[in-house]
């Protein structure tokens, strides 16, 4: 029987849900929860306005079809499934594609300064994996603008009172309480294994504290920092995902790591140059003569090799990212035809990304944000000189496994508590931290969409879950929370004290560099089983060495060293999930490419990788499992639900191949229902 009130617990406390992470997915979840009258505690590593979503540049996909090209949600669904090499369960993708136009209109109403057509309508540009103009954009800082819009709406709820069933304000209680500069440590699980809150640490005072929550939503983003330098923000270590994985949450498709084809090399970070540069006409090339020393502007057209246009005439510079990255890698690494540097006397790992044929005013109105980054960090004017770029780790398609429930139309069932539920009851995940929407390769401008759509689904889903609870987390004995808090406190003390007297203790930052260098070298674009075996051996070595780490800082204030040691320990655990998953999967699909197994193998591998933590240093891969959601036991298998778009081989050499079924260019074979869960 459900509890009497969803606003107050039996003991009279305001019942809250905890959302961890204040990027697009977290903030959208918060807004939807508030609209469902569920008060929220919002915990974030950084002020939410500084979350990694700000780095998204190019735009957000929605098949609004303002250009009269005949675009539709059905085509968006098909191209997303096809671009993802048929690893995504399709019902959530359908839900997302159908909701996309409404989402962009909502953002428009929130005041996002989207670029406009002369008629005053939203402008759309092209992105990878499609021939349609489907990407709405605000200059080239779309993620920033979207994040700000949601941040502003959440701020309204920070000053809104919690109102009880009778419409009376509860004194001193606001709909949203923000805890910024707090690090998520662990979920709190009750005796039945249900998540009833979490433990977090204030990164200024280092105080460790428990948060009760009828549910906890992780919206903590990706894990690119495992690869050392990537396009990701320094906060994207995957620590929260790793922590709940170690508490029993299933992690899915970890081996699928997106490498973005165009980034600026840097000492601290590889800065992204958005796909929108190519969407607005940018071309990727290298000189035909590998030893050509001329200034690129002096190299005539016929002496340039436009590699993507030559290899993939159908989609050209706008092939999906996995394909573009492999083409650039092949050119630079295997053919040694990267741009020649007369100073070093060798071909560097760089290709040209050229926008110099476009009008400067046009570029300023559509791409200023990214061209400014290039100008500031590379020190060259990209309006008049081709940029020099190379692929970089960018996005994690894999993440915490989350459930979905589909409706009769094959889309997501609105309000089902199963949507976005992890395998730990009461724990939800949304945004890059989960695995749901992108399969084996994410299409550009689908990430902002999946974050916001995910939030729009997760809010109602968590509200339904809360309604189903017989007892609120706020009515549980305090001892459950205090015990978990004490465990985290003891672990923190361990980090501060261990190896302080050890003269040969390890430095955590140096250890991280070793981890990152190896993961970047061996577990990205091309994967080889013998090398991956060595990686796993090295990870075991690092697992031992991390025990010898001494925290470089003993302070009780803003102790970033201790925080980093914790994140490093958690990164090592996820690194193994990624590397072991890559080793197991003997095929090539999307971002996962093994030259020894160059083909996709649907018979053996069209399935979700499901990783379960055994102990430090050991991962168990499951084919099926059971979990409980809102009192219902649910059986899950690793089969992919491809009930909406029948799998076929990707052929980006041919224009229109990615949308051929929806546009009637090929006969869609009878959909083969592969039930994911019964």
């Amino acid at each position, binding site marked *: 029987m459900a509890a009497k009130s969803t606003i107050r617990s039996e003991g009279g406390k305001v019942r809250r849900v905890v959302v961890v992470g204040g990027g697009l997915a977290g903030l959208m979840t918060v807004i939807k929860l508030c609209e469902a009258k569920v008060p929220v505690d919002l915990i974030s590593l950084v002020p939410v306005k500084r979350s990694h979503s700000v*780095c998204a540049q190019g735009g957000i996909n929605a098949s609004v079809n303002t250009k009269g090209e005949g675009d539709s949600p059905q085509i968006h669904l098909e191209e997303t499934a096809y671009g993802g090499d048929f690893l995504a369960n399709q019902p959530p993708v359908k839900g997302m594609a159908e909701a996309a136009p409404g989402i962009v209109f909502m953002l428009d109403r929130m005041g996002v300064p989207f670029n406009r057509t002369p008629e005053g309508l939203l402008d759309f540009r092209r992105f990878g994996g499609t021939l349609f103009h489907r990407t709405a954009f605000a200059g080239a800082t779309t993620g920033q603008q979207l994040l700000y819009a949601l941040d502003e709406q959440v701020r309204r709820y920070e000053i809104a009172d919690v109102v009880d069933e009778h419409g009376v304000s509860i004194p001193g209680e606001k709909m949203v309480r923000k805890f910024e500069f707090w690090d998520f440590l662990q979920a709190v699980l009750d005796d039945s294994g249900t998540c009833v809150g979490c433990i977090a640490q204030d990164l200024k005072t280092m105080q460790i504290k428990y948060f009760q929550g009828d549910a906890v939503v992780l919206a903590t983003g990706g894990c690119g920092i495992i690869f050392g330098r990537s396009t990701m923000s320094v906060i994207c270590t995957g620590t929260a995902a790793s922590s709940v994985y170690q508490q029993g949450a299933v992690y899915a498709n970890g081996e699928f790591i997106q490498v973005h084809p165009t980034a600026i090399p840097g000492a601290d970070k590889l800065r992204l140059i958005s796909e929108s540069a190519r969407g607005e006409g940018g071309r990727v090339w290298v000189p035909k003569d590998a030893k050509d020393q001329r200034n690129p502007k002096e190299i005539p057209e016929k002496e340039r090799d436009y590699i993507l246009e030559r290899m993939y005439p159908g989609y050209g510079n706008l092939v999906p990212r996995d394909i573009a990255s492999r083409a650039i890698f092949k050119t630079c690494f295997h053919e040694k035809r990267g741009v020649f540097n007369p100073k070093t006397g060798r071909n560097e790992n760089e290709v040209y990304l050229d926008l110099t044929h476009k009008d400067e005013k046009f570029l300023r109105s559509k791409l200023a944000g990214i061209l400014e980054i290039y100008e500031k960090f590379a020190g060259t004017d990209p309006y008049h000189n081709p940029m020099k770029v190379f692929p970089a780790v960018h996005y994690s398609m894999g993440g915490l496994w989350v459930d979905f429930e589909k409706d009769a139309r094959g889309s997501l069932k609105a309000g089902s508590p199963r949507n976005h539920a992890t395998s730990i009851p009461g724990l939800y995940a949304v945004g890059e931290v989960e695995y749901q929407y992108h399969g084996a390769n994410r299409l550009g401008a689908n990430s902002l969409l999946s974050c916001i759509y995910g939030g729009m689904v997760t809010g109602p889903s968590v509200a339904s879950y809360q309604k189903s609870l017989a007892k609120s987390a706020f009515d549980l004995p305090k001892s459950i929370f205090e015990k978990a808090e004490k465990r985290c406190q003891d672990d923190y003390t361990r980090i501060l004290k261990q190896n302080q007297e050890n003269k040969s203790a390890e430095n955590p930052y140096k250890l991280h560099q070793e981890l990152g260098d190896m993961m970047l070298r061996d577990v990205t674009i091309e994967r080889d089983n013998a090398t991956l075996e060595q990686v796993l051996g090295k990870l075991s070595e690092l697992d031992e060495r991390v025990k010898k780490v001494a925290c470089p800082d003993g302070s009780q204030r803003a102790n970033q060293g201790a925080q980093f040691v914790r994140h490093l320990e958690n990164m090592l655990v996820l690194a193994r999930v990624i590397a072991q998953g890559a080793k197991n999967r003997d095929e090539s699909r999307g971002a996962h490419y093994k030259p020894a197994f160059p083909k996709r193998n649907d018979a053996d591998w069209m399935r979700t990788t499901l990783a379960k933590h055994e102990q430090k240093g050991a991962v168990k891969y499951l084919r099926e499992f059971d979990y409980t959601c809102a009192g219902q036991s649910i059986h899950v298998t690793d089969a992919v639900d491809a009930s909406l778009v029948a799998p076929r081989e990707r052929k980006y050499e041919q224009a229109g191949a990615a949308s051929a079924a929806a546009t009637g260019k090929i006969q869609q074979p009878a959909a083969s229902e592969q039930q994911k869960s019964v």
Partner: protein
Amino acid sequence: MANSDTTKGTGRLVHLRVKRQDGPDLPETKRWEEFKVPYLPQMNVISALQQVQKEPRTVDGKDVAPVVWESSCLEEVCGACTMVINGRVRQACSALVDQIAPNGETITVEPMTKFPLVRDLIVDRERMFQDMKKVKAWIDIDGTHELGPGPRESPEAQQERYPLSRCMTCGCCVEACPQYNDSTQFVGPFALNLVRLFNMHPSGALHKNARLETVMGEGGVQDCGKAQNCVEVCPKEIPLVDSIAQVSRDATKRLLFGWLLK
């Protein structure tokens, strides 16, 4: 995928001088510490500080705790890593060593001075976020359910609004502003710019007066001393002085004629 060339050193050293303090209540720990770290290609102040983390030892050979600072995106779009570098407030990520110390000059790094210190280079900018609530920096939408597209807008209007919307709440403008300190209530240039931004939007304009009234009293637009330092230091080149002038004009109009409309 190895592109590790950028991590190789060249023998050249970068000289950092960092102002440190262990906590807000520990003024006696205020000190300068100097570090020399290996130079890396495309190095910025963040990567220099990251080198200190790996070898936290001062030039005098003293082992110390690594310097702490705030950072996130490292591409000057999140606003986290604002600090005072060689006397100028800016983001540490876009402070390139080759530009600020081309001949090995010492780079001085200090925390911002207008906010409560947390530790070393970290300060607490919460006041800025609170002031965004005060000036109602949002559009009052009815809800996130489907209500169709927003109002139409000309490309020219969008091009005017977009640059104002790129404010990262980084704090440069208020650090440079002589009127902004802990003894005044002044909301600062960034907040006034937000008033202008939301008042420009067709739906935002429906609440224009309510927003203007938040900056018509103490701490509002009349506290601006017109020093124009803000626009000089804004990393996103937001026309802050124009924004303040616009809000000031609108506020004056409201003050003079508002009573007629009541």
